[in-house]
């Protein structure tokens, strides 16, 4: 915020200087790697100049920083204030109302224009903005008029109801936005999001509750997937029998991999778990006799409904025959949706219960301070290993669900980037916060899936523009941006479940004597 009394001219000048410097730096950064593209030719590599892209990139940096300088960083009234206030409790003033109103109007106008030009992707963006502002205002209104109401629980209950009735609401979604996507697409997307919610909740036990940074979580996901795939293809075992076995196998691997790293802390732990994750992947890739190497495992069976398969015909009765309804491939997908929903709820339920048990408290105590925890007589070895094992178990369960949903697995699916995505979901959601992790999974996975459907951008940048290429780039930028903006996550991270109620200040004389 600007010092009071600085004139507009001074502000403009300093904003311009700053943006100009940023532009020069951007030019240095992008000049070679973006301004020239190395192309493979018959004669070897040649260079192809791309001045336009360079100009656009430098322009984005310059004007972006200029706007931020003028309206946020150096402005007397930063334009972001009302949006920040939506998440807080301090009162609105007139300017906030004007900005929020203008935003809502813009969103409505954007929605109408997008609807006229039949650009559903932009309709969705406009609706997302409206929903954000609307939900924020609703929350503020509840806080204002009913200060004692546990409003957060309303949102949680609404979210759970939405998840449970999603197969019904998705019909409505499709009708409302006429995106022209098959219903199956919505279920697949929802299943994907829920898989990440479950993985996020599983990793949240290790990272959020116990405070152990695990960068190799995908290893347990892989163990679960391969356990089920191998048991199913070699011994013909079904999903429901293999699910607990896969969970146990992953938990066992959690202990095996957790044992050597007991002494490590913080960053070192992170890097060793990363190494373990890579080792698991390389072994899966090269141990061809068992894992079939890079070709992966095919023909993994789908789960059955109490022994009733979701196929048009079968050896015995199938689901549709048994219930006397017409066969529809969607039935199997909807069933998968409810399986992963149940698994995710199970993860959440176990976490919520564990948090109240001595072991959960020990995890949180260890996260807050390991040395203090040890000096209070908590066995940190057991505490760490149980955290690893529990987290790994849910990773394994999610893994075997992944295998059964895909019907095919290969080491390709278990790269480091997968671990990074799950970790990003946990950290950006707010470590230890169950709700935050769920929101982050929806925003991250759903948001980047939405990027697939940006035909509008394609018409703008030309046919060669592939939005999918930019997904991971934007993902990384979002990871950095959200972290810098809110280091404690979207939903603030969870404080310990059990704390001393009255925090007593320590008297100065005790501090001086060194006794406190």
């Amino acid at each position, binding site marked *: 915020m600007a010092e009071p009394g600085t004139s507009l001219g001074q502000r403009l000048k300093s904003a311009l200087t700053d943006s100009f410097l940023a532009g020069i730096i951007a030019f240095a950064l992008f000049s070679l790697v973006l301004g020239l593209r190395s192309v493979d030719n018959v004669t070897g590599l040649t*260079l192809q100049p791309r001045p336009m892209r360079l100009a656009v990139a430098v322009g984005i940096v310059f004007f972006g920083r200029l706007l931020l300088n003028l309206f946020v960083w150096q402005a007397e009234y930063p334009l972001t204030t009302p949006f920040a206030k939506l998440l807080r409790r301090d009162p609105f003033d007139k300017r906030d109302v004007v900005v929020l109103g203008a935003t809502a109007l813009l969103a409505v106008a954007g929605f109408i224009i997008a609807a006229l030009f039949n650009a559903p992707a932009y309709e969705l963006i406009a609706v997302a903005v409206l929903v954000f502002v609307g939900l924020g205002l609703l929350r503020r209104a509840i806080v204002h008029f009913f200060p004692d109401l546990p409003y957060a629980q309303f949102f949680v209950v609404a979210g759970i109801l939405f998840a449970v009735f999603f197969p019904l609401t998705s019909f409505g979604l499709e009708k409302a936005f006429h995106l022209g996507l098959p219903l199956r697409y919505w279920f697949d997307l929802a299943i994907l999001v829920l898989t990440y919610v479950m993985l996020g909740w599983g990793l949240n036990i290790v990272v959020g509750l116990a405070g152990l940074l695990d960068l190799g979580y995908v290893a347990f996901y892989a163990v679960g997937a391969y356990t089920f795939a191998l048991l199913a293809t070699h011994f013909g075992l079904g999903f429901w029998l293999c699910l607990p076995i896969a969970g146990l196998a992953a938990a066992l691997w959690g202990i095996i991999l957790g044992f050597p790293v007991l002494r490590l802390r913080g960053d070192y732990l*992170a890097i*060793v778990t990363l190494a373990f994750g890579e080792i698991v992947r390389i072994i899966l890739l*090269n141990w061809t006799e068992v894992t079939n190497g890079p070709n992966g495992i095919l023909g993994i069976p789908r789960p059955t409904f109490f022994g009733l398969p979701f196929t048009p015909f079968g050896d015995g009765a199938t689901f549709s025959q048994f219930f006397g309804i017409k066969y529809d491939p969607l039935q199997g997908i909807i069933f998968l949706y409810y399986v992963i929903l149940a698994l995710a709820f199970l993860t959440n339920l176990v976490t919520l219960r564990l948090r109240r048990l001595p072991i959960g408290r020990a995890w949180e105590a260890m996260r807050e301070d390991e040395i203090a925890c040890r000096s209070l007589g908590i066995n940190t070895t057991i505490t760490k290993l149980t955290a690893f094992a529990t987290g790994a178990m849910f990773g394994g369960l999610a893994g075997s669900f992944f295998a059964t949903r895909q019907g095919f697995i290969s080491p390709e699916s278990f790269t480091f980037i997968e671990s990074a995505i799950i970790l990003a979901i946990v950290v950006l959601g707010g470590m230890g916060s169950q709700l935050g992790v769920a929101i982050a999974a929806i925003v991250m996975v759903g948001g980047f899936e939405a990027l697939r459907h940006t035909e509008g951008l394609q018409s703008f940048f030309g046919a060669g523009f592939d939005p999918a290429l930019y997904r991971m780039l934007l*993902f990384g930028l979002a*990871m*950095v941006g959200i972290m*810098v903006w809110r*280091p404690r996550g979207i939903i603030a991270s969870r404080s310990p479940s059990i704390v001393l109620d009255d925090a007593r200040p320590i008297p100065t004389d005790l501090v001086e004597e060194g006794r406190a």
Partner: protein
Amino acid sequence: MGEGEAARFMTYFLQQLINGIALGSIYGLIAIGYTMVYGIIGMINFAHGDIFMVGAFIALIAFLAVLSIGITMIPMALLIVLVVAMVLTAVWGWTVERVAYRPLRESFRLAPLITAIGMSIVLQNFIQVAQGARVKPLQPVITGGFEFFKEGDFTVIISNIQILIVVTTVVLMGVFWLIISRTALGRAQRACEQDRLMASLSGVNVDQTISLTFVIGAALASVAGLLYLLYYGVIDFYIGFIVGIKAFTAAVFGGIGSLPGAMFGGLVIGLIETFWSAYFTIEYKDVAAFSMLAIVLIFFPTGLLGRPEVEKV
């Protein structure tokens, strides 16, 4: 084992030793960036491997550009490329620190590690978008070599590029050592490493010192990138990940915060990887390096040449 067998064994061993030293020098150059940053702000600069990758790409493009404007004298061209790559990669290093790490310096310990992972994803995908996902092959620039050792039909060859790698590394290490031990910047760095608050109270510009640390680390990584490009002749946007982890292993192996340790660790990791590929299975060479990392951290948490860390509550 017959006479010829012994000679074959000997020459093969020597050849692998030389290859390992060349590879290890590259790891050592990158490891310095990890070790300095960890020493001064206590974080793993996860994006450093990708800075190395960006440096290799800048070197590649600068080299092609220099050739296309008509400078065909190879030593001259390489010198220009070296300077350009060092400067531009240093700007990348500076920017990454400024954007992703400085705002989080007083935040909780894992916060900068998360942004570092994010930055690593950003750099990889930026290069993929800007330069394409395919590997970039470069015709061999520095060819030839000389027979170092000959026994019967078996020869051990040191190629010119291997000599260049080792000489460049040794020279840079020497310069760098002088900077750390003799200049005001080095003194400020060592002060920040010991106690950042006290250093700032004594008039050290901590922000600037940390920025310069990143700049130096990135410049050294770009040299490693150039050498890697010349040595292997092939780069892609993904090389930073694996090479970065190995260089980090090297830094940990030698004891994080220790410069001779980084060089020593780099050589050890380079040798382990080369010998593992030569005598065991090439598929599992990364497993060997990663297992090494785990073993070192578990049994020597402060590395072989590092100082023990005091636990403070």
